[in-house]
């Protein structure tokens, strides 16, 4: 019994150690897909609900959800890069990689997606890119 518990604990610790490089790879993948979508996107003047430039640490996941849902509403998942990006933004590794919140000290109330003012599509993509880069700069 003790041996089983010890083995399970070891496996759990190993999974934690490996998580960071996998999260980093996932976020890098999101960046690549975003760059491809930006390059081929036809209408950069389209107005969309966009999270703000300054996002508090504990509101990053809320902002991620807003980016993902706005992407789905505006473009759907018909296009090749839209579909890939949507799936990547919904991935558990992306969510864990952008979770900067220290829940013990958090008292933040995050804005809803529809409350954000509309910005141009180019600004929308730049802010999403900035959020992912922020995650990569913090991951080990």
């Amino acid at each position, binding site marked *: 019994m003790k041996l089983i518990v010890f083995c399970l604990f070891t496996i759990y610790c190993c999974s934690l150690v490996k998580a960071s490089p996998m999260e980093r790879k996932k976020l890098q993948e999101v960046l690549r897909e975003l760059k491809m979508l930006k390059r081929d996107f036809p209408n950069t003047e389209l107005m969309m609900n966009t999270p703000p430039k300054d996002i508090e640490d504990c509101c990053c996941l809320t902002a991620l959800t807003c980016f993902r849902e706005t992407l789905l509403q505006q473009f759907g998942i018909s296009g090749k890069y839209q579909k890939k990006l949507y799936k990547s933004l919904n991935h558990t590794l992306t969510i864990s990689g952008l979770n900067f919140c220290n829940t013990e000290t958090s008292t933040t109330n995050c804005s809803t997606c529809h409350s954000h003012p509309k910005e141009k599509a180019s600004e929308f993509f730049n802010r999403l890119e900035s959020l992912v880069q*922020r995650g990569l700069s913090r991951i*080990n």
Partner: protein
Amino acid sequence: MMPTRLLLLLCLIGPVFAIEAPDVDCLIINLKNVSCTWNKKGTPKVNYTFYSSFFNKKEKSCPQYLTENNMNIGCIQPCESHDRFMTFNTRLVHGKDRFKETHGLKNRVKLNPPTNLTVLNGSDFNLWFYWNHTSPARLHCVESEVRFRTNNNNWGSSKVSPEIQKYCINSPSGSSRYELQVRNRIDDSCGSSDFWSDWSEPVFWGSNSSIDSDSVPLWMTLLYVVGAITLILLVVMLLQRERLKIILIPAVPKPSPILHDIEDWFQLSKGLKENFKASYNEQVCPVREYNYVSQSDSMNSDDSTSSVSTNQTHCSVSIDVNDAEDLYVPLSSSSSQVPSEEVLQVSD
């Protein structure tokens, strides 16, 4: 009317006496400090008080001013590595004058140059260079660039991917002197910085007594001079001495459809030419054909023996006579007669 004119005059003169808004320029140094200056348009005429804050953080006054001619021209204050993703607010105050600005500092980062640059001669006989960076940036966020040169020649540069802090020069020459420097910046995946760091201190490897590419040794100069003189002498000799010219540069015969005497193709001396001409004569040796005459016919004309005659003035031919009855008689008349039993000898 008068107050209107006075007001108009004040509006025109006012901007002349108003203080020009200083332009604050901020840069994050090594992801540890923010450095802001406001002397881009020249040293300010008044001493400003500087306040700043990142988004959602408390505003602070400047802990350390930069001065020039006893005037405040800038401020350095500490920051955290991820603060650059937030808007940076600055405020300059002098009396009633307040100048506010907002800055986006994500890309305005300058790292310190790499340190501990070392060189090792690897077991694979290649030259390996290693370095470290001192910023709190993650290793996968820092890209590097190396530049190197051999024997003080022109620099060559090469980019090094993030996470890699080494560079290799293959099969270095033992007689050359290598110099290498490194610089770095934040990689694109982490919000690339617009500025490279300064170049690191150089590191050297190789012979100190390597030949400077600008100076040529004395013996090489002498060798070039002697070689040039020899070449000139050879050309002069070629022009002066026909015999030498013929030996060194033989004439190539020009092919022609008209056949000439082949002897003319060779540049032979007269004596040699004479030797090729034939100086002996050979006399022509006439050979006659003999007719066959049977013995019975010959006996009718002559009872004793058949006769064969030939002209043997200059030649003789040997013929084996197997059958005495088969004899040949010359078609034309001859001056001598030979008995049939004897072997006839004809020699040339």
